[in-house]
């Protein structure tokens, strides 16, 4: 039997109505499991329920119903044991800005029951591992965003947790700092049997970091698997047509629908996406049909399936549109 580091079944969470907001069903029967030593990426747009899932699994929040085991412990019945087994890196920076990097790490170690000496040693080790040694004695408020984020991850690792939760680890970082942090996370995975559950709304990040992916939409998992398997489950290639004018009356959709070997046409404003058996033969046919009807085209591109296509297939909208709606 495979052992799971995280097993969540049928999680439901509704936030009560506020003065301005209607009640919000953040999780609607979410079920997900993460094998030991696996890096699982929860991918979805803002508001899909990713952070809520993490908050429940880290015992910060409680689900209305459903159950979850983390590192073998029930989050509702033994929250303290769960807390001792996990590292949590919240979405917002979680270091104390008035304290130095070293002081932050030492305090965290001591809260987890390490002695002063052990904490100090572990803190130095982590500063070194994240390339922060020379900044260790400076207050965190003087750190750059990328350095603060690295310290956040280090704070989650002080007590050698079994499961590490990274909630949107690179949101708000510049591309360079993001690439830097990605390297750190890649180095983490596979070490000391650490299981990582990370949430992201960057397709590229999910593709790059996660061994396993779970796509979240409206509080449920809509697709699961390795990034490769998810992409392979899509047949053929993806064709992307950018039109000059939006296809408001559905002419283009109808026109292309008649072509052989083309399917799953989705129109969003000026862009039209479709799935084709073979990209090389489909492009001339698409262009020919559009030219016959004198429909002006900006660009046609053909690509191997991407996670965006996977997302589109399972949620019926492209990731970009889902993000904008959120």
């Amino acid at each position, binding site marked *: 039997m495979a052992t799971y580091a995280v097993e969540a079944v049928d999680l439901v969470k509704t*936030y009560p109505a506020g003065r301005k907001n209607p009640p919000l069903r953040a999780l609607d029967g979410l079920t997900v499991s993460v094998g030991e030593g696996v890096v699982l990426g929860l991918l979805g747009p803002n508001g899909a329920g990713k952070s809520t899932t993490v*908050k429940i699994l*880290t*015992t*910060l*929040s*409680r689900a209305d119903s459903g159950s979850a085991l983390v590192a073998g412990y029930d989050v509702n019945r033994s929250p*303290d044991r769960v*807390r*001792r087994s*996990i590292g*949590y*890196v*919240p*979405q*917002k*920076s*979680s*270091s*104390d*800005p*008035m*304290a130095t990097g070293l*002081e932050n790490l030492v*305090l*965290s170690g*001591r*809260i*987890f*029951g390490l002695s002063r000496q052990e904490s100090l040693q572990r803190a130095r080790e982590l500063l070194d591992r994240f390339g922060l040694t020379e900044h260790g004695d400076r*207050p965190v408020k003087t750190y750059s965003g990328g350095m603060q984020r690295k310290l*956040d991850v280090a*704070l*989650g690792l002080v007590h050698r947790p079994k499961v590490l939760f990274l909630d949107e680890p690179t949101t708000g970082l510049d591309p360079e700092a993001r690439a830097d942090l990605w390297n750190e996370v890649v180095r983490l995975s596979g070490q000391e049997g650490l299981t990582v559950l990370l949430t992201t709304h960057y397709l590229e990040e999910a593709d790059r970091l996660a061994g396993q992916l779970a796509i979240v939409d409206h509080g449920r998992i809509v697709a699961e698997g390795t990034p490769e398997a998810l992409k392979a489950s899509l047949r053929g290639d993806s064709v992307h047509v950018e039109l000059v004018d939006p296809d408001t009356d559905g002419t283009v959709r109808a026109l292309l629908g008649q072509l052989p070997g083309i399917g799953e046409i989705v129109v969003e404003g000026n862009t039209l996406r479709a799935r084709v058996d073979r990209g090389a033969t489909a492009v001339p046919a698409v262009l020919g049909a559009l030219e016959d009807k004198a429909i002006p085209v900006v660009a046609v591109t053909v690509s191997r399936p991407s996670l965006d296509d996977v997302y589109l297939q399972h949620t019926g909208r492209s990731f970009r549109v889902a993000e904008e709606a959120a």
Partner: protein
Amino acid sequence: MIAHTGLVFGRWMRASYRQPALIAFTLVQPAIWLLLFGQLFQGVVRLPGFGDSSYIAFLTPGIVMMTALMTSGWSGTSFVQDMERGVMDRMLASPVSRGGLMAGQLLSNATTTLIQTILVFAIGIAAGARYDGGIFGYLVTIVASMLVGTAFGSLSNAVALLTRQQEALIGISQFVSLPLTFMSSIMIDPTVAPHWVNVAARFNPVDWATIAARQSLAAAPDWSSVSRHCLYLLAFTLIVGWLSTRAFRTYQRSV
């Protein structure tokens, strides 16, 4: 819980001594109050009820309690900052004791109160206040002021956990602390205050502390009154301390 209290206390003490401007402000403010109100209300000693005591001697213990109250109203702002960042969430997902998280912060707040109390006395005595009560009177005053600081510090922390907003916290704390200051014997002897103020003061923890302090500093203290008022104050502090620790749960329900 005790170990965690110590760790959390250490964190806040370190944070405060790294903000010298804030320290200066928390020390200058009570000095100004004492001297300002001391000048402003000098004449009230001529009213019946004050006896032959000097107003500054009367006012000093009152300003001690007012300072403890006013400064502690800000206590929760440190919690709000932790919530605005991810510090609070990281802490609450760790095995840290909730009681320790609260007590450590309150202890650092009480340390500020202690320093302020000593400073206010130093200024009061320099301005001519004299007390016959001796060292025990000062000790009672110090303990009472730290209890006021802790009780209203926990209330402020609880409001912080419930509202999670700096503006709401400051608004509520101002709304509460001014009436508590004036519906008490901090500045004026109860014999010259309207009856309803005396009735309200009877339920005012800041007034309990002021009475206990003044009595214990007097030449012939009424010890039963001192111990009764200290006991009320202690009970009040424990109750609001417990309630504010419960507020972590309310906060966690809303995240």
